[in-house]
């Protein structure tokens, strides 16, 4: 136990303190403010892998590390679509995952948001559209925000979630900044 406490003390709090001029930090502050304004509570996110190569999943997992500390912002990944406000979907959507993705989407209570993640989720990427790959997420369910990248960095993913919460979001728009 002593070793664990010593290690916690030695590593300290890593969540990045970003100076005011840093665009990344402004994004995170703004994100928290918007969530409080709009949701008035924690934002619950359900991640669905609709057929990705799994690189996007690695970056989604990284959002939870102490440096990005997404839970500290009030955003939580949940285990059921029925608990979710927002779906984060990686792709390309495979023909075999179409039904499962549609059912997951329908299980999320209204109003709901969808963020398509990665070059493949946004446009089919290296796998394209055709044959076993149905291409972008928007071919199967309505998408509010697309966050391209191969894979998109955790900071970009946070920016995408913010874009989904912003009322000015155009359907299938590209995440800032």
């Amino acid at each position, binding site marked *: 136990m002593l*070793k*664990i406490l010593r*290690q*916690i003390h030695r*590593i300290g709090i*890593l969540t990045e303190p970003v100076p005011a001029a840093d665009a990344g930090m402004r994004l995170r502050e703004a994100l928290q403010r918007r969530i409080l304004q709009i949701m008035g509570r924690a934002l619950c996110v359900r*991640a*669905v*892998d*609709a*057929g*990705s*190569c*799994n*690189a*996007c*999943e*690695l*970056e*989604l*997992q*990284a959002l*939870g*590390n*102490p*440096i*990005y500390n997404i839970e500290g912002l009030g955003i939580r*990944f949940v*285990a*059921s*679509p029925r608990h979710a406000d927002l779906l984060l979907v990686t792709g*390309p959507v*495979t*023909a*075999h*995952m179409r039904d*499962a*993705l549609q059912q*997951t989407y329908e299980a999320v209570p209204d109003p709901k948001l969808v963020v398509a993640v990665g070059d493949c989720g946004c446009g089919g*990427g*290296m*796998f*394209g559209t*055709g*044959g*076993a*790959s149905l291409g972008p997420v928007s071919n199967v369910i309505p998408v509010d925000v697309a966050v391209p990248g*191969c*894979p998109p*960095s955790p900071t970009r993913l946070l920016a995408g979630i913010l874009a989904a919460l912003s009322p000015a979001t155009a359907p299938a728009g590209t995440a800032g900044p």
Partner: protein
Amino acid sequence: MSLKTWLAAASPLGADPAIRAIRVTAEDWRRAAEDLAAAGARLLALWAQDAGAGHSAVFAVYASAGGLLLTELRCDVEGAPAAYPGLQDLFPFAGRMQRAARDLYGLSSTDPDTRPWLRHAPGEAYAFVRVEGDGVHEIPVGPVHAGIIEPGHFRFSVVGEKVLRLEERLGYAHKGVERRFLDLDVEVGCRLAARVSGDSAVAFSWAYCRALEDQTGVAPPRRANWLRALALELERVANHLGDLGALGNDAGFAFGLSQFSHLKERLLRATEEAYGQRYLLDAIVPGGVCRDLPAAAGARLAQSLAYVAAQTAVLRDIYDEHAGLRDRFVGAGTVAGPLAARLGLTGLAGRASGQAYDLRTDLRDPPYDELCAVKCGAESGDVAARVVVRFEEVFESCRLGQRIIGGLPAGEVRVAVPRPDSDGFGIGAVEGWRGPVLVALSAGRDGRIRRCHPHDPSWQNWPVLEHAVIDNIVADFPLINKSFNLSYSGHDL
């Protein structure tokens, strides 16, 4: 025939004399498999594809002490039987590969399981094996899972908490990768290869480049080989750190997840500084690597590796002494050595069950002929053993990484790869973090891909997971599954 005779009867496929190929009859297809299995060779991959000139064929690649051997059986020649001889009794995991070969290419084996595997028939229920008896019920899980993981379906047959049987149903991430490769330019194909399984991008893109370089007779510069090995070891460390944290978390020890995910993030940032990418999806390119490593960036990367190794040593001490973790890890998901050998458990999970194979030390392809990597292993075959192997490999890969940076030879980091003279064929195998990754590639004179088959070691290990969970409790499945951490995308193609 002995292994030596088979190797002598085969001829080199490309420039590397340790990769040999032989075209066989249906009878010899079976005999070769029997002889090689008896000699202790391992089946690395089995697939069906167009064999050029309008022929269809089934291919198998074996790894032996004498190198790699490819056997090719043409299935559409006169006198060929309607179904090729199945190899499932010799290599149990071959059954699914044969089912996939039938789904994707229409060639059938003589083995009895003819259920589709990668191709799901719409509206048709999959015939799971039913377990009957008092109090037996089924728990279906997936394809959408409660976490940030890939899609797949698991069907548990349980009595109370005890798992009697697990049956996997995969193929949900099937994207038609092999078809996508067709007619791509060989340079673009390398990018697709890296995305067969994103967590093994270096292993797949390196294996792809080896296959291409072998058939064009190009030897990458020594410095490029060293930088490729550095990328491969960075990928190994990053994945192991992620898994060690997740394994702690799955056993209720959130401290482990936050500590290891912090270390992983540090390493990813150092990797980005050195290679321009957090995940090395585009680091390996035909003929070499995407960019050179300047001395200053190399020094910082070496420092990061030293930091990771030192911190991991502290955390290992904590994991080793933590009674709660020991209780969950020891004896969970055990695959004993003889069963692992029989089922062909490979890679990291195999090494945790006494299967001491590692292509880096067994084949010693450049630059591992100069680097003297140390093979890590354990015997007990449980979650604890797979944790031990990950710890050992983190230390070893950090050591190798620092040695590579410290002794990096001078010279070019990329040479041009010419178009193949004729429609060539090559094989590349690389020991990725999960196990041996193989790519078979045929490129045409126009620089376009004729056919390409990428093979992930998850093919070998998914069936063994079904055995590992027998008699364990359902609640331990996430922990056992994570201790294998197999790829869905790499398997589903």
